[in-house]
């Protein structure tokens, strides 16, 4: 399997495949995953019955399932997967920390806490949730960044600060849910992360914001590259370091907050995908960002497919699938970092 072999190449500079091939493979995987997601689930649909419905010859069941259940769900996984991957890549570049990700440093729990709080305090104002989620994500990312700066910004400090902040905020979510049990309908699904029952009206308008934010990150690709040379070098090249760090962390918060607002606390994807992408195409943002977008979307939609068909007709939250896959990968990363001795 050629595709599996590229994962096992030892060093990032030893690219087994040219970047465009990696991107094309990603797009193909994405298409396969999307088509499979359309067809499989609690009820399996044959593409032929869907085509028949589209042509007006079927009974319309397949079309209704696709329109109202599967399409919104696919859109949600694609948007959340790509956004969290890009947010993770941006946070890792700006904090210059390979172990940072929206999940690890507490950005997701920050978004989740504020979203839960908004639900508890203003149950009627559903529109507030995305705004609250963004604010929570943004405040958390600045908080963790601030703690990192104040303590000398060693790589491990930022991760530890993030873990602590994340713990506090998760406790905050639990507290709100305990006091106001109705704060989140299906709070389990929210806390593990899942997209079951999502509707188009729940995804948009955040979806547009996510697309714009990803485009903005791509627009700033050269600035990201210069920033990752280190603060001093970036500054000597005339970049307004503080401004761009703030701007990029803001975009990352926008992406992570929006994803959390409809997909819950999905973990690990923001850590996993940028690392895989870096190994596949290297560190140049020009190719790294598209790679994160494509593989993030493909991976989350694939995980959601697994979540739906593994115990069909019952399903498990996609966050569970991700954690089961992502946890071991994170441990592997930690061990590999230690071997290279760069986590101190």
């Amino acid at each position, binding site marked *: 399997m050629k595709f599996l072999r590229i994962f096992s190449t030892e060093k990032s500079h030893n690219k087994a495949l040219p970047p465009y091939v990696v991107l094309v493979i990603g797009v193909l995987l994405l298409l396969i995953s999307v088509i499979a997601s359309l067809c499989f689930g609690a009820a399996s649909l044959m593409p032929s019955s869907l085509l028949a419905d589209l042509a007006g010859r079927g009974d319309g069941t397949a079309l209704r399932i696709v329109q109202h259940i599967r399409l919104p769900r696919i859109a949600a996984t694609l948007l959340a997967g790509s956004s969290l991957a890009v947010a993770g890549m941006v946070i890792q570049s700006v904090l210059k920390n390979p172990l940072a990700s929206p999940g690890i440093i507490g950005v997701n729990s920050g978004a989740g806490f504020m979203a839960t709080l908004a639900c508890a305090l203003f149950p009627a104002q559903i529109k507030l949730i995305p705004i609250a989620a963004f604010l929570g994500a943004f405040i958390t990312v600045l908080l963790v960044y601030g703690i990192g700066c104040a303590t000398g910004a060693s790589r491990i400090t930022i991760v530890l600060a993030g873990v602590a902040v994340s713990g506090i905020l998760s406790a905050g979510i639990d507290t709100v849910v305990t006091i106001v049990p109705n704060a989140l309908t299906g709070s389990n699904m929210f806390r593990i992360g899942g997209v079951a029952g999502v509707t188009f009206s729940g995804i948009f308008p955040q979806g547009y914001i996510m697309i714009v934010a990803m485009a903005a990150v791509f627009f700033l690709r*050269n600035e990201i590259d210069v920033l990752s*040379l280190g603060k001093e070098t970036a500054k000597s090249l*005339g*970049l307004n370091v503080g401004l761009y760090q703030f701007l990029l962390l803001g975009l990352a918060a926008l992406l992570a907050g929006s994803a959390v607002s409809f997909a819950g606390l999905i973990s690990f994807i923001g850590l996993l995908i940028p690392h895989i992408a870096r190994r596949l195409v290297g560190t140049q943002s020009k190719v790294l960002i598209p790679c994160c977008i494509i593989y993030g979307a493909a991976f989350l939609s694939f995980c959601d497919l697994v979540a739906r068909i593994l115990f069909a007709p019952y399903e498990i939250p996609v966050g569970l699938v991700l954690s089961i896959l992502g946890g071991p990968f994170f441990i592997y990363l930690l061990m590999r970092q230690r071997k290279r001795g760069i986590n101190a």
Partner: protein
Amino acid sequence: MLNLKKVTGGYHGVPVVRDISMQFMPGALNIIIGPNGCGKSTIMRIAAGQLPPQSGEVQLDGEAFSTIKRQDLARRIAYLPQSQNIPDIAVQNLVMHGRFPHLSYPRRYRKEDIAITKQVLEQLGIANLAEKQMNTLSGGERQKAYIAMLLAQNGDIIFMDEPTTYLDISHQLEIMEILNSLKERGKTLVVILHDLNLAMRYADRVFLMNGGNLLYDGSIDGLFNCGLLDDVFAVKTQRVETEMGPQYYFIPKEHL
């Protein structure tokens, strides 16, 4: 022409260097020496526009730094910090980022930037490293890649904070020879050196700092004659006339 006027500066409101006025010699190799913690790096950060002074002023060709835009400054002044983080990036991409200050929005590298990148890589004899990742290079090669980036930046003034530290002697000399050749092409170089032997061999003008103050500013001859080196570094400086000009070496004080 870069002018520091009564500059005091440091971090978190605590001054590290006090009331320093200095002027670097254009088209020459200016070398700053001094013991650890004397404020060499701080004064360089201020002079390179990286750190705003707490009081006093830095002027570039008569314009105050505070009135020059960040990007314009980066086109005229290049600065290589001491901190050796090793980015995971190909040499040619690193060197290309030297063109960053010359880009206008939306900051996309142009054909001429690629051409300049190729040109400086060849100038420094490292065209063969163009596609190598920085983290696979030796210390000397990495330093040359950084110098190539500074050259692509194409400023008239180049600041370097200890560019030879951690290098073998042959690579130290190679870097110094490169700096010499840059000087001959009209660049003004301001370099912090830890190694007094190298400093004494290559400096056109030397600045001696201690305890946040500038003690001496002038020629190597003058520095030797005034005896300040011996006091500041607690050594005895010896001069030997050779066919390559005067050479200096340093021995412990108590031996004499």
